[in-house]
């Protein structure tokens, strides 16, 4: 797969916790399709995300994205909104599992936290992302970044379509 994804960036800082991504106020919701409307409602300055995000837009964040709660809502709300991949320096453990289990890609990108702080990635920048090559280009200013490769098991789960389909076909 050498497809290059193109879309706008929504840029966040370090330690974006699950309450900022998807607030505990809406935990009773069980249908993933209803979740995007609450995305980033509590993130100061990003209250307009839910209304403004378009399918194909990227979520770009610094270190430890998705820290806090185990709520899978925080993955569903972005996946259902059509955000194709999360680009972050690192991602919290539970958030990462939840993403992989739903075949939702998270690309770990070295140096992206500092790049955000230095203003090299801004809201609205046009990005070109190659998932297979792990390459990210900021078409707005020409900056490029490289993502980490994922381990074989995670890759297998992803390509099976998530943990459930993976288990159905591999483990009995």
């Amino acid at each position, binding site marked *: 797969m050498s497809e290059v994804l193109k879309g706008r960036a929504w840029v966040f800082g*370090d*330690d974006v*916790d699950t*309450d*900022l991504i998807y*607030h*505990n*106020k809406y*935990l*009773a*919701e*069980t249908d993933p399709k209803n979740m995007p409307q609450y995305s980033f409602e*509590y993130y*100061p300055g990003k209250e307009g995300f839910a209304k403004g995000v378009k399918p194909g837009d990227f979520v770009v964040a610094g*270190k*430890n994205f998705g*820290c*806090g*709660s*185990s*709520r*899978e809502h925080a*993955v569903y709300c972005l996946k259902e909104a059509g955000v194709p991949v999360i680009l972050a320096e*690192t991602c*919290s*453990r*539970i958030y990462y*599992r*939840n993403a992989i*289990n*739903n075949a939702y890609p998270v690309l770990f990108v070295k140096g992206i936290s500092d790049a955000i702080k230095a203003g090299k990635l801004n809201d609205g920048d046009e990005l070109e992302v190659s998932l297979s090559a792990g390459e990210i280009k900021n078409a707005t200013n020409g900056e490029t970044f490289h993502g980490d490769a994922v*381990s*074989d*098991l*995670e890759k297998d*789960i992803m390509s099976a379509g*998530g*943990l*459930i389909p993976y*288990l*159905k076909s591999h*483990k*009995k």
Partner: protein
Amino acid sequence: MGKTMIMKIMDRASGRDVRIGERVWCNIDLSTARDFGGANCCLQFDEITDKQGKVWDPDKIAFTFDLQAPSHSEKVSNNQKIIREFAKKQGIKHVFDINWGIGQHVMLEHGLVKPGDVILGTDSHMNLLGAVAAFATGVGNTDIAASWIGGINWFRVPETLKVEVTGEFRRGVYMRDFLTLFVGEMGAGGLDFLSVEFSGNVIERSSLAERITLCSMVTEMSGKIGLILPNGRVLDWLAERVKSAGGSEEDVRARVKAITPDEDAPYFKTLRYDVSDLEPMVSCPDAPDNVKKVSEVAGAEVDQVHIGSCTNGRLDDIAAAFEVLKAGGFKVSPKVRTIITPSTREVMAKCAAAGYIEKFLNAGVVFTNPTCSLCTAEHYGAMPSGDVGCSTTNRNFIGKVGKGSHTYLMSPASAMATAVRGVITDPRELLR
């Protein structure tokens, strides 16, 4: 080369000789869900199996209701109902309904947790069960539903950080204060994916409540698990609980032996702390790792004080708050709303028997039923914009308990001292 505690736990659970960094499939000893996330697990399981499937082992599944107990909304009520019906259909008997309290604590009290167990739950603070050397971890609903199919799930074998805590707490200083210091030093991502082993004389002497406090906030540093080897009265208590649940006391003791880390275990790093000079500490708004001494923020105005949660809602915690209230003349400041939430029904009953509840009520404190309460904006003690709270919970992200509100995290003693004076107060001022 020897093995750390988490490696030995994963050896047992995977039936392999595990190595750091590899992904292994582990057998799950207990796969639990709450009224938060639990409904999704049930719906997802039914969807995968076309409503025909049976869970792999109904005795290894437990449900706990604590997000909203009793429920505060139709949606949560419906989620609770979905769980009750699923449990009934599947013959799952470990259902701790709204009258029990915070899940991990209730399961611990009911003897469902053993050293060396691998436990999943829809709660990012599941890992407080590391207080009895279980590897318990918060996961999403997909992980839980998947585990119900075949009783397995995958984990990466983590590196281990060793933390030795020695010395002696001074009066008015508690495990929570050490924890707050530790969170401040590590930072929100400081234990990323790591297992932590806590040891040293402070840990060996510590109560179950203190161990729970310490292990519960490993999540706030992005750690995988904090483990403490059960010993002394904690081990006796645990063995007794497992036995009354129909388990074997000998098995508990044998498991402790089996997961004791080797002398030459590979630690990624060892950190040493002496708590003898420690002062009461506080996590300032709006992050757990924004740490200062209580004395540095003393005098700051607060609107609400909340004591409880899975981190500091045990009898010892409430007793510590009681001591401070007593020293303060059994009256809280009328400027501050003070709320206490015990972690479980057992804790509540003990508070009643000790005469605490009546004294709290007479002092102007609201004493609630056991539940998660103050950890979300949808339960007791939600705050309006602009209000400042003091809390013994584990997270103070911006707006966590109400948009535009801010929270200081601290020990139960510091929180009660603050309730008595109406401004942030070092508990030693009252206790001396």
